[in-house]
């Protein structure tokens, strides 16, 4: 593995240009509206500086060590197939039946199947590029217009200009689907990918959806610039599980935002395991009266991994409820940051917001920061937070060891138990098992 000496650097931008935007759009014969939107986003991108540690949301996230020479080169597919994705990740989520599966290797769609039960109900589950061509009104209406917009930030604009591949999941009004949808972004080689997820649930629609970001260990720096948009109509209900298991050397910069309509519900669970550095903004907007949003996370950095999860719970209407539970375990010299904000707009009376970030530290060199925040402009609200950081409890480990469990297994049980309250929120048993297996690999696979 080639390691190069790095001198102190500026916060550099990747070596991408307007010509890359034009070439990408051209190559895929994209409709004109999309090409125009990309170019406008590029202008937006160019008008903004790269974020630095002087910017509040980036204060603790120093990505200067990224090597854009490899991480900033757009990755083109070179023959990777569906079978390259680990078999465990390709399993159906419930029993034998795959509701819908959309898999991308590098920037290319390699597999698409949609069960007839979904198609019959008018569910659209396809790659975003196809959706832009086949369903232009839908795509144009929702793509980066009201969840994540290009103005949101430098990387949001970059994704808007240059997204290389994406998922479009659409559930029509009143359709409640029991079979889950599942998509995977799998990267095989170093380079830059920009993935986009757009989920639209019309009023009264309901579905469960799992998306996974994965790669094996890559041998030089890579980047993933992602945007996730979840649009949940009045009375609609989405359970969204997002797993991230990038290999070493992957830097993720992503913006993820949900908008929930009147009496709508969002249950959003994320598992963050891999990557060299992850900076993810996750935001829920409770726009409609009576809406409910829950955000849960398990995260487990080890080695020199750095994870910065930046959450926001926006109460924009009365009688809205939000609930956040993040649980992190840190090993080795890893670092995590969680900064969470609950906002209540004036008039968002009778809202109830809660956030808790709990971390368990397994090494004296690891460090976890928790920065809760409240910004309440309404007067009749209940917003609270709770955070706790501590070492793994030696008394628990000792107790388990007195029953004959070797230290690593005792620690694994303690960690599993710590994660259980979040894992129990994942509606797919084999996904819970898979996360447990990641945890085991982290605990026992000490390099």
């Amino acid at each position, binding site marked *: 593995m080639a390691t190069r000496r790095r001198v102190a650097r500026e916060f550099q931008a990747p070596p991408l240009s307007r010509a890359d935007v034009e070439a990408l759009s051209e190559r895929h014969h994209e409709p004109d509206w999309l090409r125009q939107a990309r170019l406008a986003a590029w202008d937006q991108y160019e008008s903004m500086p790269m974020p630095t540690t002087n910017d509040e949301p980036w204060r603790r996230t120093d990505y200067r060590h990224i090597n854009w020479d490899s991480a900033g080169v757009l990755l083109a597919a070179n023959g990777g197939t569906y079978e390259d994705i680990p078999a465990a990740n390709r399993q159906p989520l419930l029993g034998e039946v795959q509701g819908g599966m959309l898999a991308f290797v590098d920037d290319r769609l390699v597999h698409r199947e949609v069960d007839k039960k979904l198609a019959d109900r008018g569910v659209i589950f396809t790659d975003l590029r196809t959706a832009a061509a086949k369903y232009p009104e839908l795509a144009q209406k929702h793509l980066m217009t009201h969840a994540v917009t290009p103005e949101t930030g430098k990387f949001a604009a970059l994704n808007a200009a240059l997204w290389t591949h994406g998922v479009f999941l659409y559930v029509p009004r009143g359709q409640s689907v029991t079979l889950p949808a599942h998509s995977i972004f799998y990267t095989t080689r170093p380079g830059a990918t920009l993935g986009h997820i757009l989920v639209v649930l019309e009023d009264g629609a309901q579905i469960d959806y799992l998306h996974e970001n994965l790669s094996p260990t890559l041998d030089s720096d890579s980047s993933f610039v992602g945007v996730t948009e979840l649009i949940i109509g009045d009375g609609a209900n989405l359970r969204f599980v997002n797993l991230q298991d990038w290999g070493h050397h992957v830097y993720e910069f992503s913006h993820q935002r949900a908008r929930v309509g009147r009496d709508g519900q969002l249950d959003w669970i994320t598992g963050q395991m891999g990557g060299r550095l992850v900076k993810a903004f996750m935001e829920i907007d409770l726009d409609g009266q009576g809406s409910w949003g829950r955000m849960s996370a398990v995260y487990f950095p080890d080695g020199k991994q750095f994870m910065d999860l930046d959450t926001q719970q926006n109460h924009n209407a009365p009688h809205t409820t939000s609930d956040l539970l993040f649980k992190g375990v840190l090993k080795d010299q890893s670092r995590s940051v969680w900064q969470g904000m609950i906002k209540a707009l004036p008039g968002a009376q009778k809202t109830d917001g809660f956030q808790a970030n709990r971390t368990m530290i397994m090494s004296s060199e690891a460090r976890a920061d928790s920065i809760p925040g409240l910004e309440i402009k309404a007067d009749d609200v209940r917003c609270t937070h709770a955070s706790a950081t501590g070492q793994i*409890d*030696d*008394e*628990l480990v*000792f*107790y*388990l*060891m*007195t*029953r*004959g*469990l*070797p*230290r690593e*297994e*005792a620690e694994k*049980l*303690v960690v*599993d*138990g*710590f*994660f*259980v*309250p979040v894992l129990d929120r994942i509606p797919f048993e084999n996904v819970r098992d898979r996360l447990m297996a990641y945890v085991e690999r982290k605990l026992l696979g000490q390099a």
Partner: protein
Amino acid sequence: MGAALEIRNLHVSVENQPILKGVNLIVKQGEIHALMGPNGSGKSTLANTLMGHPAYEITAGQIIFDGVDLMDLETDERSRMGLFMAFQYPVVIPGVTVANFLRNAINARMKAENPDSKGIPIPAFRKLMIDKMNMLEMDTSFAGRYLNDGFSGGEKKRAEILQMAVLEPRIAIMDETDSGLDIDALRIVAEGAEKLTDSLDMGVLIITHYQRILNHIKPQFVHIMLDGQIVESGGPNLALHLEEHGYDWLREKQNGNGSVS
């Protein structure tokens, strides 16, 4: 021949504070010993030290179990050799069910013996659990609950004995297992422990403040700890004597001895 646990001139400090000051005791398989003594005299310190708790530093002396010096062994190795402690204050393990935990514990034993072992099959494990829970008159729903999480004081103690029953140790230390148990629970737990003692030829060190558990499991030996030392050993009558007279006579005897020597 059964194994023996031999404690020789054991000195233990916590945070550089000497707590045990030369303990000598031998517990053999098949024998029942009671260890009594006032609060803070060092009984739990002894129990935790025997299991290898990292907070307790052995500054002098030895612990030999089945001919092996325990100083060199990790806590889990001591357990797999057949040493067990029922905790005075069992900890809560959030998110880990009793069944899951015990299956892991059994499998750890099987894997230590044979690295290729696949562990105990689920049906066999289920039967084992049900048998032992029946013996202790425990509701089988306990198996699915998180270990000690929300358990009442008595339930925690029963869960400790359940673990003892499943793990089948050669020498067990029961640290105030009787406290917090109501009369019925005390009888059930004590009889369960007695059955195990007989069927496994288990040696037991019962740490207690009260005579009542000793009515169910009759000790051959009673020892009294005062300020980090065993100052008196005798037969079952010693416990009855304590019940009546407390510890003052021993303290006086100690002080008397102190001024003479």
